[in-house]
């Protein structure tokens, strides 16, 4: 590896390779090496994320909403209430102030929705051509509110896997908004702060919780299964994949399970808690379509498999490299 390729930023196994072979040689704090969505500090969790989406505005959201939700959700899936955010802008010379105002209004709205406060900020402006309009970084601190820590080592065969609604909307929304493929029709991104929904479930024991963003559900489930003594099995017939998403994916040759979501959470709970978890999720607007999509098995350890509609079975792999560049 002598050059960074776009594929290294895709969130799949190429990203993992860059992290392992380059970053971890220099940065190897034990908290960092846990490779969670956020670091667990004493009494709080801490996370950071950068946003480079193109186009900046897409149906259902924009880079501002994405920047707040991204970090808020990384904290939320650690079972933590998002409290404080920092935000930093890198803006290209010549960027329209009107557009900037639109993005800021959206940031303010997303903060109100999520309950997080932006308490420090920074702005840099670079020469024309040195950035693509605007890039945003957010970092956040949250307070863990779950009784039992979200800890994948406590996942057991027999547990069930839940998701709060339709998959693939964000990636497909951004893709069609680019207009590059001559695709028409608006598909709204699902970008939303998840803490409100997750908070409803805080009395439950949830050993695994992730937001399936870049790399989609397939990436999240593979991270869950990798190196473990259990397998993950999902049911094709239960996967909530909207027809529009399936159609676009079919046309472009993508697997909808590899497409990013920005308002979805995958939870693993004990089978006896499944009904309770669904009820709690469904009591929130973002969870009204919550459903069980699979289970943890003792077969196929380390692997994710899918029972297909045809009555057969197949492997579900994490995406390899660049699926859709710059979707978040």
């Amino acid at each position, binding site marked *: 590896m002598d050059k960074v390729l776009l594929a290294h930023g895709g969130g799949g196994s*190429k990203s993992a390779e860059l992290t392992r072979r380059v970053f971890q040689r220099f940065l190897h704090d034990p908290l960092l090496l846990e490779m969670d969505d956020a670091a667990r500090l004493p009494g709080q969790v801490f996370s950071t994320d950068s946003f480079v989406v193109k186009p900046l505005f897409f149906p259902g959201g924009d880079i501002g909403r994405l920047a707040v939700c991204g970090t808020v959700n990384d904290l939320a899936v650690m079972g933590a209430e998002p409290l404080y955010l920092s935000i930093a802008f890198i803006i290209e010379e010549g960027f329209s102030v009107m557009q900037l105002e639109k993005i800021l209004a959206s940031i303010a709205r997303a903060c109100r929705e999520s309950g997080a406060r932006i308490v420090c900020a920074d702005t840099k402006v670079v020469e024309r051509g040195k950035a693509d309009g605007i890039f945003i970084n957010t970092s956040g601190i949250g307070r863990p509110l779950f009784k039992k820590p979200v800890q994948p080592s406590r996942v057991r065969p027999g547990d069930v896997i839940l998701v709060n609604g339709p998959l693939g909307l964000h990636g497909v929304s951004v893709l069609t908004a680019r207009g590059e493929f001559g695709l028409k029709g608006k598909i709204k991104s699902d970008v939303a702060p998840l803490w409100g929904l997750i908070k409803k479930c805080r009395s439950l024991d949830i050993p695994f919780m992730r937001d399936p963003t870049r790399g989609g559900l397939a990436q999240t489930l593979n991270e869950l299964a990798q190196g473990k003594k259990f397998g993950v099995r999902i049911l094709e017939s239960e996967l909530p994949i909207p027809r529009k998403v399936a159609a676009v994916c079919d046309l472009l*040759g993508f697997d909808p399970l590899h497409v990013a979501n920005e308002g979805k959470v995958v939870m693993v709970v004990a089978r006896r808690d499944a009904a309770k978890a669904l009820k709690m999720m469904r009591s929130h607007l973002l969870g009204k379509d919550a459903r069980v999509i699979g289970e943890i098995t003792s077969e196929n350890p380390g692997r994710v498999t899918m029972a297909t509609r045809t009555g057969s079975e197949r492997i579900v792999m994490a995406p390899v*490299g660049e699926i859709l560049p710059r979707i978040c």
Partner: protein
Amino acid sequence: MEVCGTHTVAIRRFGLQRLLPAGVKLVSGPGCPVCVTPDSYIDEAVALARQGVVIASFGDMLRVPGSRSSLEKERAAGADIRAVYSPLDALQIAAETGRETVFLAVGFETTAPGIAAAAMKALENKLDNFSLLTALRLVPPALKALIAVDTGLSGFLLPGHVSAIIGRKAYDFLLQHRLSGVISGFSAEDIISSLLLLLEMHNKDIYKILNNYPAAVRDSGNEKSRTVLAEVFEPVDAEWRGLGFIAGSGLNVRPAYAGLDSRRRFTIKTESASPQRGCRCGDVLRGLIDPPACPLFNKACRPDQPLGPCMVSSEGSCSAWVTYG
């Protein structure tokens, strides 16, 4: 044999290969455009990219290793290489940048008419900075070459999209070899019903070419598309990975449109290098072995570091075997 890469992927995605009755086996054929494109073609594209030409290509080609580099690596090193979904996007790049733009014309009868139409549009719009580096391939000549030797195949699941252009009659030559074919769509139901038709014919010792995708395919195909194609392109002998040179199996730009032909427009110098040692893509493409029989399969050659094109292309059979199991 399922000829088409899209079928290979669909079969594995639906897990159909696990549902087949004993005694029935599906082998993948040479119908993945990226897979059958030889190394030398990538080398030509890399050489052009290094000359400062804008390269526009279907995304699948970017990661295919040539003998020394790949387009993905050239892009990271600063070459202007753009993934597009349509040859018309490449035209737009040529119009907007005003720079020499080369479209990597790779594909079968399905993509060739669209590329021909884009080329005609370039002429119409007097765009004189747009050209095609062709590696277009034709399905029937490859099938003819394949069955010229005994393959042990009993029938073909024929590609739906290619057949929409060339028509059902284009496969009549199979009958002389006592081989049947069924043209199939891409849903699980389409594929299962097509396999059933093939098995019925096999069991009754009947040889026919059936069209099980009538929504898209006619007996004589799409004549209009073939006319556009024939206006710009002419058949030539062409190299296929695994199958070698096959007479009349490729398409080149006709001399009348020399300006549209990157090979006439530029001097392309490539250094040849020895092919990847151990890679058995060629045998996979001929249906001689299943991917796991290749010594590199899922060891040195994996989806995240593919050595052979059958692992690079999402339609390649090696990739489909790893991805869907």
